[in-house]
């Protein structure tokens, strides 16, 4: 999913000027990000996340068995399971189910995977109304925009902007009170929820042992979408399965803690098939769509397999200094933030999203806050290397020949100390004409111009460390 024609560089450069955006994101980073970091200060909690990480890796190694077990249990209860190799396969299947039931209105629970597979436009082309019901997603949909945070989709908007939107689109009297705005959305959406023909949700986790999927929400919209319509379709990334109920419990609690510093979400729903009782609610049909769409490719590369341990809590967004300044839309991909900088290129094309891995600072905050300690900085570097060298496996061409050549020369020079020292001396002299009065270089030319476009270059030291070391008296070394 690409929302804008502009590049990451252009979008980021514009977003960085937006002080309102920065304030809005700063708010969530301060409130939730800091809380999650505090949670990891406890040794027991750190052991807990190590345990979950080990479980995630073990699950990935046995993914074929776990998915087959999950599917068998759901099918035994009369549920349908469809394994979609591509996004198109998944959307075609969901479209077919919608046509069979003559679906006119779909209510959705928040699902990043449904955005990833590009489901909305296809259903809308069938004259089906597709309505987001998570409040944040609903606001973003009303605004004709895209979510900018994995768990707080409208974090880029403040209450004044939301009040204007509701006034314009819903005709409500203008109010900036969150209470009043929520009440309005509650009333509008309840009518839609009661009259929907189909509910579509994601899947936070699935458990092979019990053959159930699990969905968390605080608002209750997901319970509505899985209770009121006659058909429920759950869209699940294929890596989202855990083996046992114990793993389920462990991972789930870590998810809500990392996502929102909550010990548990208000609603945690478990389901594994169509409703069997004659109660007048619960779906008569249940479909689980298990999506590959590039995940097996990631699974097959030891360098990147780790990213499939991700439980999509969004914690890395709450810690990242880059996300904190440019927001989610600048990433121009379905998944923003540090997780997006790794997963978006892998799912949608490394060349296509070449700028994302160079935009992050490698400061390591994402790794520190991640509930499964995913080494995102390591994978960002691996992506940079893939871009520099090209990769047949990833169908990736060398991103910049000049850059690749430059690093080749640098490698040669550093391996030849005599040459290195000579060039260092020349460099000091050559830099002088470009330096300002403070010694900093603000503008370079030719291929080096890109470096000084967004940052100044520090003057080169008059003597290098090794030169100074050598000049020290022996006893002081």
């Amino acid at each position, binding site marked *: 999913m690409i929302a804008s024609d502009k590049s990451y560089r252009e979008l980021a450069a514009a977003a960085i000027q937006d002080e309102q955006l920065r304030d809005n994101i700063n708010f969530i980073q301060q409130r939730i990000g800091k809380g999650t970091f505090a949670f990891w200060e406890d040794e027991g909690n750190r052991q807990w996340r190590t345990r979950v990480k080990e479980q995630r890796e073990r699950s990935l190694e046995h993914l074929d068995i776990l998915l087959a077990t999950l599917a068998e249990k759901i099918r035994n209860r009369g549920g349908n399971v469809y394994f979609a190799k591509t996004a198109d396969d998944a959307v075609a299947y969901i479209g077919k189910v919608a046509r069979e039931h003559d679906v006119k209105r779909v209510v959705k629970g928040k699902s990043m995977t449904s955005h990833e597979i590009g489901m909305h436009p296809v259903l809308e082309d069938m004259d089906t109304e597709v309505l987001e019901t998570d409040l944040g997603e609903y606001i973003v949909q009303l605004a004709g925009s895209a979510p900018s945070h994995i768990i707080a989709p409208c974090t880029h908007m403040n209450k004044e902007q939301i009040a204007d939107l509701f006034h314009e689109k819903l005709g409500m009297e203008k109010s900036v009170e969150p209470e009043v705005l*929520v009440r309005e959305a509650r009333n509008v959406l309840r009518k839609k929820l009661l009259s929907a023909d189909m509910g579509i949700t994601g899947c936070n986790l699935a458990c092979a042992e019990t053959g159930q999927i699990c969905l968390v929400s*605080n608002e*209750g919209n997901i319970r509505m979408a899985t209770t009121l319509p006659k058909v429920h379709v759950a869209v699940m990334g294929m890596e989202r399965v855990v083996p046992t109920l114990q793993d389920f419990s462990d991972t789930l609690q870590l998810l809500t803690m990392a996502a929102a510093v909550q010990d548990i979400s*208000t609603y945690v729903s478990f389901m*594994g098939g169509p409703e069997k009782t004659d*109660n007048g609610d*619960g779906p008569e049909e249940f479909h689980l769509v*298990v999506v590959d769409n590039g995940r*097996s490719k990631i699974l097959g590369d030891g360098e990147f397999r780790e990213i499939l341990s991700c439980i999509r809590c969004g914690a890395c967004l709450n810690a990242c200094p880059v996300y904190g300044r440019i927001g989610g839309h600048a990433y121009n991909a379905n998944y923003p933030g540090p997780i997006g900088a790794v997963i978006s290129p892998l799912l949608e094309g490394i060349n296509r999203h070449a700028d994302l891995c160079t935009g992050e600072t490698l400061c390591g905050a994402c790794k520190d806050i991640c509930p499964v300690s995913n080494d995102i900085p390591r994978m960002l570097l691996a992506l940079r290397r893939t871009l520099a060298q090209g990769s047949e496996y990833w169908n990736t061409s060398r991103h910049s020949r000049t850059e690749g050549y430059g690093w080749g020369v640098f490698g040669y020079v550093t391996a030849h100390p005599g040459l290195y020292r000579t060039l260092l001396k020349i460099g000091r002299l050559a830099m002088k004409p470009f330096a300002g009065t403070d010694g900093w270089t603000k503008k370079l030319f030719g291929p080096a111009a890109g470096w000084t476009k967004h940052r100044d270059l520090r003057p080169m030291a008059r003597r290098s460390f090794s030169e100074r070391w050598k000049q020290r008296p022996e006893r002081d070394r």
Partner: protein
Amino acid sequence: MHGNSMKTEQDFFSTMRRSLGLPVDVDRTVQDFPDLLPAADTVSQSSKTDGEAAADLLDLLQTSCAKHHLTLHIVDDREQAAALIAEMVKVAELEFHDSRHVILHDHPLLAGLRLWKRLEDEIVTIHTCAPGDPDTREKHEICCVGITAPECVVATHGTIVQQTGDGQPRATSLLPSHHIAVATMNSVVRGLEEGFRKMREMPGSSFVFISGPSKTADIEAQLVLGAHGPRHMDLILIRT
């Protein structure tokens, strides 16, 4: 399964096996990996609750309920519980319908409260869910209060575990603006693990863990109760 989707599924698994470095056409089965899904109960056990621990549990529950905006009432007997519910029903907000309707799960604990008798002088209609009732859904849409009897109550998290069963639809704890859960003291367990174990022991596959009223913080991270589900939730715990 149609031939076509069977083929798609085989392709899906073949691709996955290739990525895992396994022979592409050989199914691995769960029997080959006894440690992956052990047959025994894997959910960690915690100690049994004796008399002293019960007081501890209540303390825990008080704290966790407060955290989730779940109002906890501890009453001595069913009589007190019924009186309390009657008071709540009388003042419940009429949000989606003008007249006062209440709906209960079909459960012996709730039937024993004889709310119909207690509220006979009020203008209130009391419905009890019954399997096969074609009007159940419509009744839920107009009720201002929904009353359920959860399977268990988790002390550490202020959570009720509610299963879907005959005469116990999902909507009762969801559509009415006010949800009241009624439980006895012996249904209180310490941790979430025990809640999970309880869930495994029960038939059916549809469960929900509920911790307080519906809420959202999507607008400027400001907490608002009652996003889509109930705006209020009470838990009534009966000592005997």
